[in-house]
């Protein structure tokens, strides 16, 4: 399993990451802001797992030596690679929207200025 991202998808209900060899490996649902991880059996995968908005610490993009971008989820003390993409613009758009949804579902939703700061951090990570 390469965790190579084929597409970022948004429906009326949720947002998804589709890998080349697996659809819907990651989901952010609009109603609750939960992050669902259904990544399969690989050693770098969680499956059947959920991350709640209150445990969300943000997304990050990390440029690798191959000039690809690792899409990373931070929750608790964990930094987890969701996939790898060459499309940093598309990834950034998806991550900004997903973070906005998740933050809005936190027990104490962050202010617009705090979200703007996080988007800036994401874009410059």
């Amino acid at each position: 399993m390469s965790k190579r991202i084929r597409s970022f998808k948004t429906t009326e209900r949720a947002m998804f990451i589709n890998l080349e060899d697996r659809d819907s490996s990651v989901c952010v649902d609009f109603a609750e802001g939960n992050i669902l991880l259904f990544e399969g059996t690989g050693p770098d995968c969680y499956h059947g797992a959920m991350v709640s908005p209150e445990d969300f610490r943000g997304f990050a993009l990390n440029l690798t030596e191959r000039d690809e971008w690792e899409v990373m989820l931070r929750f608790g003390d964990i930094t987890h690679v969701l996939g790898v993409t060459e499309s940093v613009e598309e990834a950034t758009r998806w991550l900004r929207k997903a973070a906005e949804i998740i933050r809005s579902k936190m027990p104490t939703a962050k202010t617009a200025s705090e979200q703007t700061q996080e988007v800036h951090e994401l874009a410059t990570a």
Partner: protein
Amino acid sequence: MTVSVYLSPSIPEDHEPGHMCLAWQKEKEAVEFRGYVFKVLDLPAEYQSVTKWREYLFDHVVPGYVIVDEIMIEKHACGDANLIARHWPANPWHIEELAEKAKPGPRGVYSFNPDDHPGAHNCVTWVTEVVNQVLGVVLPKVRQGRIKLMTEVLKTFRQE
């Protein structure tokens, strides 16, 4: 009105462990999907990493959570050819009871080996228990809630 179960089978060559969920539909309304999952951060800190979480869940339990199963909603919407479904006719009381029992939120405890931990469930055993509680015994329990065993059960249903 119908009550349904949907199963995404285990496909080892695709690194797919499988998943199962519960669903119901009232007349002219969208299908509701519910699944059963765990939170990574409910595991002890030393088992939360992506390389360690599995070994903990075979021998222990963590809190379980009923969710609106957006993963299965998406598979269903995309016409995933691998999905196996079984449907039963239902009445409004069945649907009402099902909606209550499958209300999203914390519910029971989760384990990969639920037979070894009284009261524990994985996605398969949770679906089986809820459907059987509401409709009567329509699904057999399978050992440790293994997806492969439930796949065989549902395939047999399809052949009837």
